[in-house]
């Protein structure tokens, strides 16, 4: 006990007990609680979803603009009916959107149908990507085989490429096929996507390979810019 009293820095004249109490107080004040419970903080965002509208001018000529089908999400654009299910189940998260306001447009022309969409969303986890390299989706009369890869390089954005081969049974027992490619870019708390759906049997040449990636890059730029973007 005398050792403890010796190391305490209490003024002379205090009893050993008081010195120990004072030492304790000093230690308590110096040490404090281990770590204050972290408080989630919110980071201000400046992205403007309205920028998605400005990239319509980047489309090739002869494309007719229309509203997005509902519910607006890649699965819908692929032509798979609501009530669908994915296998493995979690993989469906890659092609859907969460609650919140959506904004975008569709455009049909000789190379297929283009869908542009911006909605609140965050990049899928690495685990989800690893699990969902190749998966299936079924709903209504349609089934889709989906593959996942990394998307085009866009500065400061995480990107994903979904490719879906969709088969739809029609009433006379035959099947129709379509091919869908969805490119997604995640910036801040937004998911921006460009989907192109083509009908391989239509005969018309599809959109050139660089167009969807170019549209996505333009969309990211326009949404990040609050002063007009690429408009």
């Amino acid at each position, binding site marked *: 006990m005398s050792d403890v009293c010796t190391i305490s820095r209490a003024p002379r004249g205090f009893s050993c007990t008081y010195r*120990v109490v004072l030492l304790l107080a000093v230690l308590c004040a110096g040490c404090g609680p281990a770590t204050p419970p972290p408080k989630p903080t919110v980071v201000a965002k400046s992205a403007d979803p309205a920028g998605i509208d400005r990239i319509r001018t980047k489309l090739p000529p002869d494309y007719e603009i229309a509203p997005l089908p509902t519910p607006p999400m890649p699965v819908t654009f692929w032509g798979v009916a609501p009530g669908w299910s994915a296998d493995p189940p979690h993989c469906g998260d890659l092609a859907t959107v969460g609650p919140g306001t959506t904004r975008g447009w569709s455009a049909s022309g000789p190379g297929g149908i283009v869908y542009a969409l911006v909605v609140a969303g965050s990049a899928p986890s690495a685990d989800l990507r690893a699990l969902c390299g190749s998966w299936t989706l079924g709903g209504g009369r349609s089934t889709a085989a989906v593959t996942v890869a990394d998307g085009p390089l866009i500065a400061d954005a995480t990107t994903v490429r979904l490719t879906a081969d969709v088969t739809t049974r029609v009433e006379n027992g035959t099947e129709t096929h379509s091919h869908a490619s969805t490119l997604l870019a995640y910036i801040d708390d937004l998911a921006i996507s460009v989907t192109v759906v083509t009908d391989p049997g239509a005969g018309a040449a599809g959109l050139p390979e660089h167009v969807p990636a170019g549209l996505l890059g333009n969309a990211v730029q326009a949404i990040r810019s609050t002063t007009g973007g690429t408009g």
Partner: protein
Amino acid sequence: MRCRRSEARPVGPGKLATVLKKALVIVCLGLVAGCSSADSGDIAKLADLRPEFGQDYNVSIIDKSGFDPKMFANKALPQGLTYNPAECSKFSTGVVLPTGTKGNMSSLTAEGEGNSFILLAVETSEPVPVVDPGDACKSFTFSGDKLRGTVEKVDAPQIEGVTTIGTHRKIMTVANGQPAIGELYTYVATYGDFMIEVIARPLLTPNAPVPPVNTDKARDLLTKAVAAVRGK
């Protein structure tokens, strides 16, 4: 709060001071020990690792912000898989935060040279449990109708005062005859209420071979990220 008064049982007046002093000494020593191993850090310092990635990398940084539970969700593999050995199924996912865990997180994503690196620094309201799979489950397989894979423990850097673990997971999926391979290297370091994680995977390009993962860089990043967060 760590500071609590110890309760002294009723004793005679002469012994009271002695008992109280002994109790205080025990509490004091405990406090000194607690202070000497106090765990602290600044998860925002993860951004200091930006220079680790050259011009060939596309880097995005999310500064310290509220926790995104999605980063740690969706880890469960589908039901109905067969594990070999069977008791290893609980190690098939990465680190899973306890339900209700709150906190802040910083992240840095870098893509380049055929690889994607995700660095996460998390400060939570409670310590993150990391369970070593032990010898019995240091390497195991799982299989199902449409997917199969392997999970193996891999070398992680040794860092003083920090628990580290490395895991390599490889998942092969087939849908409509289209095979795909998902591969993840995960290196986790924990100390106190802090967790630092480096996830490395190959960048997948359609119709191109899967590039190898630079695991040396991933391990080095974990060591440097821990040092940055700890301020050492």
